[in-house]
C-alpha cells in the first residue's frame, strides 16, 4: 500500500540537518513548490477529517448498530420465516429487498447476516492483534534468538497462502459442515485469527524493532526499568497507533475472507445462521434470474470494506505524519 508523500521541504530540511550541507534556500524553495499544486496545497491545509471519512464512519456505525439491534428490530425471522410462493421475487412492498431462493426475506437476511460477518471480522483481528502483537513486540524488542525464532515462526506460518490456510483449518475442524447444529462462527473466527497472527506479528515486530533502537529506550534501561515496564510504557504506546490503522484494514480483509470461505464451502453454516458470505453462496444458483441476491450482499460487503479502508487510510495518514516528525 502506498506511503503518504512527505512534504519535500520537510524532507530536505531533515536531510540538511543530518548532513550539515548548506542547501541553497533557492533549492529548498524549488523543492517546496516542485511537488504538485493540488497535493502541496492540501498538505499545507491541515487535512481535516474529510467528508468521505464521515460517510465511512456513518456507514460503519449504521451497520454495527443494526447488527447489534437485530433482535429487537421488526424483522421477519431470516431462517424460520419463509414464503416459498414468493421466492426469487425482487424488491416489492413488504419485502424491500426482495426474497431469496428459499423465500426468505432479504432485508432480514442481510441485517442478521451482518452479525456473523462482523463478529468474524472484528473478532479474528482482535485475537490476531493481541496474540500477534504480543509476540511481535517480544520478537522486536528482545531480538537475538527469541526474535529470530519468532520471526522464523511467522515466516513459516506465512508460507501457506492465507485463504488456503484458513480453508484447511476450517475444513478440518468443521468436518460436519452439512449438519444443522452449530454455526461454525468460532471455527472461522479462530481460523482467520490464526492466519492474521503472523501478518500482524511481523509488522509489530518491525515496528518494535525500530522503536527499540531509539535512545529513550536506552535511557529507560539506564534508569533501571524492567523489560516489561519498557515494553508497556515506552514501546507499546508508540507502536500502537500505526498498528491500529493496519488492524482496521485487516478487519476489512477478514470480512472479505469470510465471504471467500463461504464460497469455498468452509463458511458459516447457512442452514442455521445467515452471513453475508453464505447469502452470496445461496444466491449463486439463481444468478441469471435473481441476481439481486448476490448483488445486495456484495454491496453490503463492498460498502463496509470501502468504509474500513477509508478509515484505515485516514488513521494511517494521521499517525504516520507524526512519526516522520521525530
Amino acid at each position: 500500500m502506498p506511503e503518504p508523500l512527505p512534504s519535500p521541504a520537510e524532507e530536505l530540511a531533515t536531510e540538511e540537518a543530518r548532513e550539515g550541507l548548506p542547501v541553497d534556500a533557492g533549492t529548498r524553495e524549488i523543492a517546496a513548490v516542485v511537488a504538485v499544486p493540488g497535493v502541496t496545497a492540501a498538505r499545507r491545509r491541515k487535512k481535516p477529517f474529510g467528508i468521505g471519512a464521515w460517510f465511512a464512519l456513518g456507514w460503519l456505525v449504521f451497520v454495527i448498530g443494526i447488527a447489534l439491534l437485530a433482535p429487537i428490530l421488526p424483522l421477519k425471522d431470516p431462517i424460520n420465516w419463509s414464503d416459498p410462493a414468493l421466492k426469487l421475487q425482487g424488491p416489492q412492498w413488504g419485502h424491500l429487498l426482495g426474497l431469496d431462493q428459499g423465500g426468505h426475506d432479504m432485508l432480514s437476511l442481510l441485517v442478521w447476516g451482518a452479525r456473523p460477518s462482523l463478529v468474524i471480522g472484528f473478532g479474528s483481528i482482535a485475537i490476531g492483534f493481541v496474540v500477534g502483537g504480543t509476540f511481535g513486540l517480544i520478537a522486536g524488542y528482545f531480538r537475538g534468538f527469541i526474535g529470530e525464532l519468532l520471526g522464523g515462526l511467522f515466516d513459516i506460518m506465512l508460507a501457506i497462502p492465507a485463504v488456503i490456510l484458513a480453508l484447511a483449518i476450517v475444513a478440518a475442524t468443521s468436518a460436519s459442515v452439512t449438519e444443522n447444529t452449530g454455526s461454525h462462527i468460532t471455527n472461522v473466527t479462530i481460523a482467520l485469527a490464526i492466519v492474521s497472527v503472523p501478518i500482524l506479528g511481523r509488522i509489530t515486530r518491525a515496528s518494535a524493532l525500530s522503536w527499540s533502537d531509539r535512545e529513550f529506550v536506552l535511557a529507560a534501561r539506564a534508569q533501571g526499568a524492567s523489560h516489561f515496564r519498557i515494553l508497556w510504557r515506552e514501546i507499546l504506546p508508540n507502536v500502537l497507533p500505526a498498528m491500529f490503522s493496519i488492524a482496521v484494514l485487516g478487519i476489512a480483509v477478514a470480512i472479505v475472507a469470510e465471504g471467500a470461505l463461504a464460497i469455498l464451502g468452509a463458511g458459516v453454516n447457512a442452514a442455521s445462521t445467515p452471513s453475508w458470505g453464505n447469502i452470496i453462496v445461496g444466491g449463486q444458483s439463481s444468478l441469471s434470474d435473481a441476481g439481486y441476491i448476490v448483488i445486495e450482499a456484495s454491496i453490503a460487503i463492498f460498502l463496509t470494506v470501502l468504509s474500513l479502508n477509508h478509515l484505515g487510510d485516514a488513521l494511517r495518514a494521521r499517525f504516520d505524519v507524526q512519526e516522520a516528525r521525530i
Partner: protein
Amino acid sequence: MWFRRRKRRSLDSADRFPSAPPDAPLLEVDDARTYFETDRGPVRAVDGVTFSLDRGKTLGIVGESGCGKTVLSRSVMGLLPKHNVIRSGSVKFEGQEIGNWGPDQMRPLWGTQMAMVFQDPMTSLNPVMSIGHQITEPLLYHFDIATGYARELAVALLQSVGIPEPERRLKQYPHELSGGMRQRVMIAIAMACGPKLLFADEPTTALDVTVQAQILDLLQTQQRERYMAMALVTHDLGVVAGRTDDIAVMYAGRLVEKAPTKILFSQPRMPYTEALMASIPKLGDAAHTRLATIPGRPPNLLNPPRGCKFSPRCAYVQDKCRVEEPPLRPGADGKHEFACWFPVGTPEGRAAFESNKKAGLAAVDARLSAETAPVEGVS
C-alpha cells in the same frame, strides 16, 4: 507528444541561430526575475539580475546559500518546475530570446547548446543505469550516429576528463566510482554534445578538498579546449579566484557587485564582498585566529527588507541604506559595477565605517575581528 520522432541532427553542431549577430555575447541576461508562488506569497528567488557572457570567458557567480544563484542558473537554462513559477525579464542566447520558452522549445538546446554540471554527483547520476549508457544516451538521441560510434565517443570523452581505463568504466555503475570520478563522468556527460555554454553549479562542494582542485582544473581545460562560455556558481570565493575572468556577487536574488576578477579581489567595493573575502581563513593567519563571520542571516525572500537587502548585516550601513535600495551602477572606471551608497575604499565608506565603529555596531566588530591578534591566553 507520443510518437513524434525527433528529427536527428547531423554530427556537426556548429550551426547557430540564424539571427545571431556575429559579435554579440553568447548569453545576455537582462533584468531576469524568478518568483515562486507559495501559499504565503511569492518568493523572490531571483530579483532582477543582469549580466552577459562571451564565448571563451568564465564568469564566477558567488553568494551565500539562499542568495538565489542556483535558481538563477536553472532559470537561464529553463530547468524550472512547471507549476507555481513566475518568470520575467529577458534571456538571450546567441541573440535569440529564450526567456519565455517552455521546455518543449528549450529541449533541443539542452545538452547541445547549453549544459549543466550539478552539485552532487552521487544523486545526479541514475544509479541503475550504466555509465556508458548515460553518456551515450544524449549522443544517440541528438545525433544520427551508430551505437558503436557513440560508444567510441563515450570512451574518448571519459579519457578526456581523465578517467583511467575508460572502456571498463562503460559497463560500470555510478556507485562503483569514487566521488571525484563521478563528477568527472558528469562533466563528460555535459560535454558530450559539445555545448557552447556550461553552467557549473557548485561542482566541487560535495567533493573532498584534495579532489576539488583537480575537478576545477579539468573544467578550465575543457572550457579552453572547447572555447565554451562557463558560469561557475559557488559560495566559495577560493574556487573562483584565479579561475574566472569576471565575478558577479549575488545577494538576496540580486547582483550586488560585478567586476573583472583581479579588480574585485584587489579592491572590493561592496561591503558584502569585503566581508566574504575577510571570512576566508588564510594560511598566513596565526593559529587560533577567530573566524570572521558575517553576523545575522540571509534575508527572508518572501518579505525582503526595504532598502538595501544587506543593511541589517552591514558594517558600513547608514540610514539611507535602510530606506533606499542602491542600484547596480559602474564606478569611475566603467568596468566595476557595484550596488552600494557607501562603498568600501571611498571617503564616504570610510566615514560610515568609523561612525558605526563608534556606535559599537555588531557588524563592525565581526568585520574587525578578522584583523585582530590571536585571543589572549592562547599561544
